[in-house]
């Protein structure tokens, strides 16, 4: 019997493989053997964990010593001595070297052996308290868990190339592990397309479906399934014909990807010599590396929401490190960092309290940042501090009025002054741009362009707001139409305002990364496009082979008389022969 389950595709990729249903804890019991070349890094991981554990205790002792009783101090001091104990550290390291086992496993074995020796001593008074060793070791285990190894577990099947893992939910650490095992695809029952896991899967280009209800009940272990990210479907019990159809499709897309590489080195000029600029969208470090590989001129959109997805909000230093790593990964090519664009479908749990009755029209984007100024100041300070490591621009999301920009700029100025007075170097010229993604911003774009250094069009939100449809609502998503004249008129208006104000305009929504619509944007005079690095080669080929003059002519003719043809026909006229 065949069965089709639906969910949300995180990427458009195809995966074919056998189901492996991940049971809870399967990935979290880290006992495994190491490859020979992994021993060195495992030892380093062990020593770092001990070091961090001891530092944690030292910090605790320093902070708390006045409030603590002598017994409390002695206890912490004893734990600290255990964390420096050569019998524990060297003994554990020796097990890693000798038995080729991971740090967690070696640590437990060594601690067990020491406990046994103390039990044999019998003299309770002279012996170490059982709990002390346990608690100290627990601290190290916590530190080890914080920095999971790039491990090869014995629990899940070793080779995952042909395996599609099905789970209730997956965390980023689990996805990292599964990715190293080259998992073919991922299916989760819960989670949205903007969860940490989904962002990571997208970044690692692993086909993934989220929100597939009852997947664990409906899919059998070892059953062969097809995962179609484009349609958001899992096909089980398919016949051989369907399997071979998908295998061919997957093979064709692989060949196409390889074939497209040869365009990457070419200058970005259309067939008739018009320059265009391709930029990358990036969240996590692998994205930045991919951006570099495909030769983006800059990162046009670094989203920062993922930094806020954990249980605690990120502090300034955590953010600074993330921005700095991204900047360094780009080796001198500029990065546009968008300040927190929380709200709507991507609201971090910690900010749940800001959710109003209609999140799409509520406290989101810059509105949220301006109302939680402490949060905003932290982010701006982190970006400013990172800006000395390479060229950075700040992008403000979800604008509707010029005075929001003025307010944000004041905060940026204040942070800059504060940092200077603290003796911290910052880039004095850091450009500030704004997202044009609401009808208000698009209609009033002349007012907004004034105080901004550049504009960035978020086509996804703009289209939803202009057409008053929610794309995730299956009852109305048939109305989603990027060629709706109202959308095209606004895009043209933004492009013209940018030109008048000498304000570069970038398009960073889905329209920029879709081969069907990239030429439409070119025809509107929008020639700075930012997109996920995975789709860039295809877009580049399409634009290299386009005639900018023809695109302009076709689009303008259609705008003059939209009744002449449907939007679909417009796209067909623009598409390659």
């Amino acid at each position, binding site marked *: 019997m065949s069965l089709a389950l639906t969910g949300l595709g995180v990427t458009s990729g195809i995966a074919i493989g056998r189901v492996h249903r991940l049971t809870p804890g399967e990935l979290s019991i880290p006992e495994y053997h190491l490859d020979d070349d992994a021993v060195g890094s495992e030892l380093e991981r062990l020593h770092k964990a001990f070091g961090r554990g001891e530092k944690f205790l030292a910090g605790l002792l320093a902070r708390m010593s006045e409030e603590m009783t002598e017994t409390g101090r002695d206890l912490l001091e*004893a734990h600290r001595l255990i964390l420096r104990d050569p019998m524990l550290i060297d003994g554990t390291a020796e097990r890693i070297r000798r038995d080729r086992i991971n740090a967690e496993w070696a640590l437990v074995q060594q601690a067990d052996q020491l406990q046994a020796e103390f039990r044999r001593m019998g003299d309770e008074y002279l012996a170490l308290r059982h709990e002390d060793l346990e608690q100290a070791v627990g601290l190290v285990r916590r530190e080890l868990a914080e920095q999971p190894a790039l491990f090869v577990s014995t629990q899940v099947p070793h080779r995952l190339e042909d395996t599609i893992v099905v789970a209730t939910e997956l965390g980023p650490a689990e996805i990292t592990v599964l990715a190293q095992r080259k998992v073919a695809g991922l299916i989760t029952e819960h989670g949205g397309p903007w969860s940490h896991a989904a962002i990571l899967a997208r970044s690692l280009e692993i086909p993934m479906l989220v929100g597939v209800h009852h997947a664990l009940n409906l899919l059998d272990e070892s059953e062969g399934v097809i995962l179609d990210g484009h349609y958001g479907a899992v096909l089980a019990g398919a016949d051989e014909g369907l399997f071979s159809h998908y295998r061919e499709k997957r093979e064709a897309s692989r060949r196409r990807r390889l074939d497209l590489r040869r365009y990457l080195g070419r200058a970005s000029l259309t067939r008739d010599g018009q320059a265009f600029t391709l930029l990358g969208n990036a969240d996590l470090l692998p994205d930045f590396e991919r951006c570099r590989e495909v030769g983006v001129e800059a990162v046009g959109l670094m989203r920062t929401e993922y930094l806020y997805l954990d249980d605690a909000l990120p502090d300034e230093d955590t953010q600074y490190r993330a921005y700095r790593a991204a900047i360094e990964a780009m080796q001198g090519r500029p990065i546009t960092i968008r300040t927190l664009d929380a709200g709507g479908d991507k609201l971090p749990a910690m900010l749940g309290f800001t959710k109003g009755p209609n999140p799409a029209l509520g406290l989101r984007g810059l509105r949220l940042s301006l109302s939680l100024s402490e949060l905003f100041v932290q982010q701006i300070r982190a970006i400013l501090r990172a800006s000395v490591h390479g060229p950075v621009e700040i992008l403000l999301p979800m604008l509707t009025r010029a005075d929001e920009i003025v307010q944000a700029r004041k905060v940026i100025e204040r942070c800059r002054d504060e940092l200077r007075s603290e003796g911290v170097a910052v880039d004095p010229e850091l450009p500030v741009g704004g997202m044009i993604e609401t009808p208000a911003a698009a209609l009033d774009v002349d007012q907004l362009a004034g105080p901004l250094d550049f504009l960035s069009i978020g086509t996804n939100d703009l289209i939803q707001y202009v057409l008053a449809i929610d794309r995730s609502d299956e009852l109305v998503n048939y109305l989603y139409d990027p060629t709706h004249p109202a959308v095209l008129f606004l895009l043209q208006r933004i492009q013209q305002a940018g030109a008048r104000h000498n304000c570069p305009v970038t398009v960073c929504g889905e329209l920029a990364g879709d081969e069907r619509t990239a030429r439409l944007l070119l025809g509107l005079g929008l020639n700075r496009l930012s997109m996920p690095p995975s789709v860039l080669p295809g877009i580049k080929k399409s634009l290299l082979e386009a005639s900018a003059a023809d695109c302009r002519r076709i689009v303008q003719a259609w705008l003059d008389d939209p009744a002449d043809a449907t939007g679909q026909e417009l796209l067909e006229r623009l598409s390659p022969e």
Partner: protein
Amino acid sequence: MISRPLTLSNRLGLHARAASKLVQTTARFDSEAWLSHGGKRVNAKSIMGVLLLGAPCGAELIAEFDGPDEDDALEAVKALVDERFGEEQ
């Protein structure tokens, strides 16, 4: 390398707090430090090693030090043992 016998005269022997003081003392020095008692020889910078000696009051220990500051290390440990780890009698 130097070694010296030491006699524990504090009432409780090498119990947790005394062992902890001893280890904190040996840790201040670069020299390696060893303690032997009852056929066991342990690293004197290891709290668990020192506790595993299970040395009671009156026990005879051999302390060994090896390194650039071995004399100072011995002096410090000897002083600690002589003043009975600062415990009241």
